[in-house]
């Protein structure tokens, strides 16, 4: 999948720009606070329909009524035109090939992968960050899974509400229990299946990045005792047993105490928990492996090469890791990389360089590479 063209109007600090990137590696450079990340955000929204920053309505340029994002993707040899309007009150309208459509049908779901410094939280943050990464980033390729997560979370909300208020009828509670077990088991079953495809890819990629002496292992930690995950019915039975043994505690604490919404994943490096024992560099390498494996998984499942958005992560990696990442991408992927400096290691793989300054965008050919060090003086 490729982004061929992007037109922005009143988007963040951009008044109006027209951007026609290369199908290979596009470097977006320029001094700080000039709009580099804003451009990545625009690409992300045009493909996914929502922002990776806090509120969608914040993208409307100060004082404007609305932002317009027009983009043109190439998917399997077909052109997909996307037109997105974001009103200042957050209202969004999405047109795909000229007709109004839902954001879940946007081309980005075939694979837009975002990699940014905050991704370290996948390892270092609370369990919810790891679950969200699995459910929304890795699981996003499967619409059935996405919908399932949404339904499951709603059931948990209902069940927690019953527990909080108390005074419910037993027959009513039983129904929400049954829904909780049924949906929870299906989420867990599908999640484990997903991870069985994903974990080995992460492990292999990590071995390439870090060498054979470091063995990465990932373990799924279930909040319920699970005898196995070969079938949904088996998990339902385990949940029924768990539910009975924890019923009193749940009533006392007034919330649902087990289920896939309370599970976690640990990352072990040579059998030691990386959160406690890993160096900053090791954590970065694991995150890099997670993203590279995500790319590989998307490629296998959708047959499309995902678009990579790398926001300020290049300079955080050492030369070896920069090399690995660039080699991985430069095969068939289109990539957008924001950076204040272009490391020498990657300059020969770069296809196009864009210079961003105060909301304007200017293409600089390959030859202008030598100008780049001047950036810092501006």
């Amino acid at each position: 999948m490729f982004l061929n063209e992007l037109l922005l109007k009143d988007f963040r600090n951009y008044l109006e720009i027209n951007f026609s990137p290369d199908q290979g590696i596009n470097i977006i450079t320029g001094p700080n606070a000039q709009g580099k990340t804003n451009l990545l955000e625009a690409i992300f929204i045009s493909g996914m329909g929502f922002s990776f920053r806090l509120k969608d309505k914040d993208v409307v340029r100060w004082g404007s009524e609305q932002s317009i994002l027009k983009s043109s993707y190439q998917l399997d040899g077909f052109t997909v035109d996307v037109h997105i309007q974001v009103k200042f009150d957050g209202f969004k309208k999405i047109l795909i090939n000229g007709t109004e459509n839902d954001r879940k049908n946007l081309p980005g779901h075939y694979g837009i992968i975002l990699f940014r410094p905050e991704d370290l939280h996948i390892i270092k943050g609370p369990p919810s960050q790891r679950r969200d990464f699995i459910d929304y980033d890795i699981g996003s390729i499967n619409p059935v899974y996405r919908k399932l997560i949404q339904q499951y979370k709603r059931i948990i909300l209902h069940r927690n509400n019953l527990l909080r208020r108390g005074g419910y009828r037993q027959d009513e509670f039983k129904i929400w229990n049954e829904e909780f077990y049924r949906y929870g088991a299906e989420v867990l079953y599908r999640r484990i299946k997903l991870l069985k495809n994903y974990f080995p890819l992460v492990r292999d990629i990590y071995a390439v990045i870090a060498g054979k002496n470091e063995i990465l292992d990932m373990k799924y930690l279930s909040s319920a005792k699970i005898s196995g995950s070969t079938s949904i019915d088996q998990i339902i039975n385990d949940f029924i047993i768990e539910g009975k043994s924890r019923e009193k505690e749940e009533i006392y604490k007034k919330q649902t105490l087990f289920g896939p919404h309370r599970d976690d994943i640990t990352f072990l490096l040579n059998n030691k928990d990386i959160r406690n024992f890993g160096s900053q560099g090791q954590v970065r390498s694991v995150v890099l492996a997670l993203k590279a494996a995500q790319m590989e998984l998307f490629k296998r499942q959708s047959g499309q090469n995902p678009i990579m958005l790398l926001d300020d992560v290049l300079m955080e990696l050492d030369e070896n890791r920069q090399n690995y990442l660039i080699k991985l991408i430069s095969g068939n992927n289109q990539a957008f990389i924001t950076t204040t400096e272009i490391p020498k290691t990657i300059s020969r793989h770069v296809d196009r360089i864009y210079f961003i300054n105060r909301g304007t965008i200017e293409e600089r050919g390959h030859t202008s590479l030598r100008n780049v060090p001047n950036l810092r003086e501006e």
Partner: protein
Amino acid sequence: MQYAGAVSRLIGELARLPGIGSKTAQRLAFFLLSEPPETAEKLASAIREARERVRRCSVCGNLTDLDPCRICTDEGRDKGIICLVQDPRDVAAVEKYRGFKGVYHVLHGVLSPLAGIGPEKLNIKNLLTRLEGGKVREVIVATNPDVEGDATALYLARLIKPLGVTVTRIAHGLPVGAHLEYADEITLGKAMEGRREI
């Protein structure tokens, strides 16, 4: 903006209606005030009359100006089949299809602990009274296919089945006239699960 007391009260009351925001409420209010007085009076009396005369049918719970309602007293309808819906709008929706010759039962909501709705707030007691006679053969549960609608369907099935009544759930799947290529994966999955031999 501030308006004379009566005007802002009218706008306020209109804005309480579903689907009406403050802008639309203003438009409606000024329309009513700029038209001849009869327009507003007709509307007011229509609202008053409807509110006074329309009530819930004591049998099925649907909104009606006759009790029992026209559907419940219709001799041509099969009282042995009850279609269970969540609100009166759904009766109108199923009626449009014209092929259904049974009767209805309106729940006036679905189970939703989040909204504080438990079984005691739904029109279930009347349903059980109707089923007691033993004349009802089948209950078709036609609540919406979402989390709350499904939970409600499951709850009612548990309640009704022991009475010896067949409980069915309406099928979920592709709308008629829809093209397969435009169907989303979830709907398509449901349609596959519910396939039939031809």
